[in-house]
């Protein structure tokens, strides 16, 4: 919940009203509730918005949203704000039986909360109308929009775009241009390579982080089992040795609990951030694809314009009556081309800006994650040392009796 440096519009705000505070927009995703039955069961979340942005209705608004609503928001933003790294969403599905486990729900809730807040604190994205809709529209409206978007039949313009893409791919092949046109900027090449490699490295780190969570759980379990067995042995031995065993067993069981706790902490504060990092990189990859598309489009249009220009000149030379039409087409295309170029250039510019922020943000995020990890591990180790150490005087007493 970082407040923006957006200037207030001069609306009817008295000097003493809350909006003389710096502008803020903060969102929380809370209170997951399971709704529906059987296969169609799903989780709904309360989304609470607190803001003093003038475009928003009132200082606080609460709506109910489900996962697919968030997906809708993400898709809309991705469409509209090409070049910006849209914050990533947690993964769609999980193994069926895991889908409603408390842990999974909590992880997802946390991730969704982070998702919305990142959007709310991004200087461009926070102005999005779709965001406003998401945060404020009633449930029916949301449902309509959601169904519309994720339906098989997308908007007509999307359909057109798909056709065009296919068309251009086909014509490329037909014209012998099998390889799609790509930028030749070496720095950009380097960046692409970096992003792709980074994803691999991060995925591996995340994999081991997840395993580490499991190991904590396993060690906890085995400490518990060991403790029980040792206690039984103590009961069998009797006298001071038996006591020693019992105490050891009890300590072991105590430590088992600590380990399970730490496993959870690790999952939420280290593994999740790493996964989040991976998703963020994947989001960048999506932007890279968008940039490539924009670049191709620009190139195609440039090509097409050249042809059209030649054609136009030819026609005007022979004073054809088709000149008018051709000129209109030519101008249309020119506008389109300029638009495409603008889009491409804005993507490039935005990407560069975003990259700086991305790297900084990630350094911060990882720093926090490392700090959490280290503190958790130190805490755990200290707990273990303390627990075992407290046994020593008792053991010493046993051996002297």
């Amino acid at each position, binding site marked *: 919940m970082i407040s923006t440096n957006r200037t207030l519009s001069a609306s009817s705000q008295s000097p003493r009203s809350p909006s003389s505070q710096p502008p803020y927009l903060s969102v929380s995703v809370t209170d997951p509730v399971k709704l529906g039955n059987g296969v169609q069961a799903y989780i709904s979340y309360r989304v609470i918005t607190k803001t003093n942005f003038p475009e928003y209705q009132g200082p606080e608004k609460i709506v109910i949203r489900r996962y697919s609503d968030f997906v809708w928001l993400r898709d809309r933003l991705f469409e509209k704000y090409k070049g910006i790294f849209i914050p990533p969403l947690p993964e769609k599905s999980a193994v069926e039986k895991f889908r409603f486990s408390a842990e999974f729900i909590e992880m997802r809730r946390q991730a969704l909360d982070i998702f919305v807040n990142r959007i709310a604190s991004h200087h461009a994205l926070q102005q999005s109308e779709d965001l406003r809709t998401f945060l404020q529209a009633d449930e029916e409206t949301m449902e309509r929009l959601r169904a519309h978007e994720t339906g098989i039949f997308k908007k007509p313009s999307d359909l057109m775009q798909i056709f065009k893409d296919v068309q251009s791919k086909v014509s490329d092949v037909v014209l012998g241009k099998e390889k799609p046109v790509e930028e030749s900027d070496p720095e950009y090449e380097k960046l692409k390579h970096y992003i792709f490699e980074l994803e691999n490295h991060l995925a591996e780190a995340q994999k081991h982080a997840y395993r580490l969570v499991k190991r904590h759980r396993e060690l906890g379990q085995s400490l518990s089992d060991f403790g029980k*067995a040792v206690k039984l042995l103590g009961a069998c031995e009797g006298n001071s040795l038996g006591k020693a065993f019992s105490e050891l067993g009890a300590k072991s069981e105590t430590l088992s609990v600590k380990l399970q706790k730490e496993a959870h902490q690790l999952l939420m504060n280290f593994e999740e951030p790493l996964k989040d990092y991976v998703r963020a990189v994947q989001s960048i990859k999506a932007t890279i694809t968008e940039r490539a598309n924009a670049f191709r489009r620009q190139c195609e249009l440039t090509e097409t314009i050249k042809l059209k220009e030649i054609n136009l000149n030819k026609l005007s030379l022979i004073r054809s009556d088709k000149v008018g039409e051709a000129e209109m087409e030519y101008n249309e295309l020119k506008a389109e081309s300029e638009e495409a170029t603008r889009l491409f250039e804005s993507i490039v510019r935005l990407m560069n800006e975003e990259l700086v922020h991305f790297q900084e943000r990630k*350094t*911060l995020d*990882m720093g926090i994650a490392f700090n959490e990890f280290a503190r958790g591990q130190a805490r755990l180790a200290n707990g273990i*040392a303390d627990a075992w150490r407290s046994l020593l005087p008792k053991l010493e007493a046993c051996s002297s009796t």
Partner: protein
Amino acid sequence: MMGSENEGFEEAHLYASREEMENLVLDDPLNNNDNDNNSNNNNNNNNNSNSSINGKSYSAYRSAMSSLSDTHHPLSSPILATSAESDPLLSPPRFRDLRNPNAPESSYIEPPAYSDVIFCPFEGDNVSDVNGVESPSRNSDFSGRFSRSPSSSSSSTSSEYLKITVSNPQKEQENSNSIVPGGNTYVTYLISTRTNISDFGGSEFGVRRRFRDVVTLSDRLTESYRGLFIPPRPDKSVVESQVMQKQEFVEQRRVALEKYLRRLAAHPMIRRSDELKVFLQVQGKLPLPTTTDVASRMLDGAVKLPKQLLGESTVLAPHEVVQPAKGGRDLLRLFKELKQSMANDWMGSRPAVVEEDKEFLEKKERVNDLELQLSNASQQAEALVKAQQDMGETLGELGLAFIKLTKFENEEAVFNSQRVRAADMKGFATAAVKASRFYRELNAQTVKHLDMLHEYLGLMLAVHNAFTDRSSALLTVQTLLSELSSLESKAEKLEAASSKIFGGDKSRVRKIDELKDTIRVTEDAKNVAIREYERVKENNRSELERLDRERKADFLTMLKGFVLNQVGYAEKISNVWAKVAEETSGYEKESS
């Protein structure tokens, strides 16, 4: 053994990355200069060199230490004592070389820093060699005091030692006249002994023995020392010898033999036995009677049986009475005892002498219960060790993944934020790898401590055998008593019948005389049997006492060692992460 196969792979894997790490980590010494573990390879000198340890944890060590010395038992020698005169029951001998007079007190707490040894597979002798510490309790050597290697003995004067090593397996050929061409090959091992016990005529000697000799030794000991808890010998394992690689099998056997001989040497009565002496010293062929196989025995017994049934040589010679019927050649005796045991069990006839010792029966119950719990605990201990192992491995892999990331970010860095992140990652990765190593060390030690559970579990077999000795001795007594009583009643009947005949009955009188002879001999045998039974009972009793005593001491030592180990390594690991937390503490404040 536990993890030794994996160890090699792990080691290679880690070595590869260690090079990577060393390329990255220039000024931050990841390895051997590090303060906490590596400078202290020998247990002797780490007291002051520990000053580089984070003060907080060191004081924790010290406080643990002082709490130990405060509650020192007045009778026990001070913890520092290293003279072998100290009663090993009271002063914990773990972690130290008993013969080293200089081990300062902190070595008791400080888990041995095997950092140089980490990447070597922790098979027994390597470790002790590298460390130069002839620790009696380590690795393949590790047997409880009860069944322990001989740095100290439990009851006899502790300045005696009997150290046995098994080495140098070699193939030899049997010069047999067998039909199988090429002759039989077998493996011999060099059995080297070092001792200062005067009964052995010498202080260092060696002989070559094959496994069959060990079987012979074991069988002879079982015969001579009925009632004692004799350590069980290694299995013959015919199947394994075919399945395993020859080399692996031989090595496994060598380790097992060494363990076995050392346990024998640790047993206060067996170490003085002639059988063991002869086995260890006499060159050439082992001069102990070999055990005949079951088939031959049965054959011999079958030959004798007709004579026995005809009334000849039915009596038990005294020397046979002291052995159980089962392993012998006297089939008739076997049948008689079988009949007796069936009469005991099924016909409700209470034999003249029964196992009356309630205390013994209670103890037997306890032993059975103990075995059950030991088995359970031993299993869980193995699972615990595996979990610790896995934890260390995964932590190491995580560290490596971040090492790679660090390298990657550094190479590709365009922004300063990337370099900062790379530095953070390096700190994290270094810590993770360090912690991973600590987990492995912790685990190696844990294995050694908890191995005591396995050891005592293994001993249960010996206990059962000793109890069986007792019941078979009892059965012999019962059988002889029954026989005696039936002979006597036969004699009575004959006398009664013959007294009715006027002038005497020459044939009957003769029979009565013969019977009376038999009765006398049987009476003698019975007395021998009773004495033997009492002897076995006494052996059982004294061994049970020894078992309880030594087990208590051994287990307490195990617990202490285990706990200290955990404390030590937990502190080390905590330090590692405290450092990282410190280094990244800036982020903590920023985010809130």
